């Protein structure tokens, strides 16, 4: 996961490397996910999210769809 100045810089970076464009979203969405994902790591008894919980965290930031799915393909 990388930060870019703008979508134009993402497009150019992918093009130069022959990489398919992944997904682009805002730092605000990333901050929302980061707080849920990492905010309790220093608490005793912390555990990793289940796939369903993780998808819920993504959805709380508006990150939905196939790219964010953790379910195995049918």
């Amino acid at each position, binding site marked *: 996961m990388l930060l870019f100045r703008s979508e134009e810089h993402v497009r150019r970076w992918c093009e130069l490397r022959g990489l398919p464009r992944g997904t682009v979203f805002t*730092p605000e969405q*990333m901050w929302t996910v980061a707080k849920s994902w990492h905010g309790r790591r220093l608490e005793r008894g912390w555990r990793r999210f289940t796939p369903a919980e993780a998808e819920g965290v993504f959805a709380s930031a508006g990150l939905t769809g196939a790219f964010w799915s953790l379910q195995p393909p049918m």
Partner: protein
Amino acid sequence: MTDDDVRLHILRELIARSAAPSVGDTASALGVPETDAAAAYDRLAASRVIVLEPGTRDVLMAAPLSAVPTPHIVRMADGRSHYGNCVWDALGVIAMLGRDGDVETVCMDCDARLTLTVRGGALAPTDAVVHFAVPAARWWENIVFT
């Protein structure tokens, strides 16, 4: 000693010293045999709580912290700095520590310096965008690249 004790010890040492403890360091700190600490490192790695350098028990990642320098530097208001594994993890360091901080990184396309600022639990507005190359279901195929 539980695996959670080991996990917390690794994180706290990374925060305090910016260096991950070796298995021997952790065993000494927790007062357990080195073989027990080594087994805990292996279990934490197997369950993807930490990432070890291949073929070793040297900690590479204990999310959200990186044990090695990265382009994603976290500068906390108290003057301490840390490395995030990616820009998401760098923001995660600030979330985990629950204090004000900045993430300093660069645009991967043009090397322009970019800063994300968190004050009072809020991210300051920015024109930057985040790009994720790998779909979520495939992150662990190559977590270092992801």
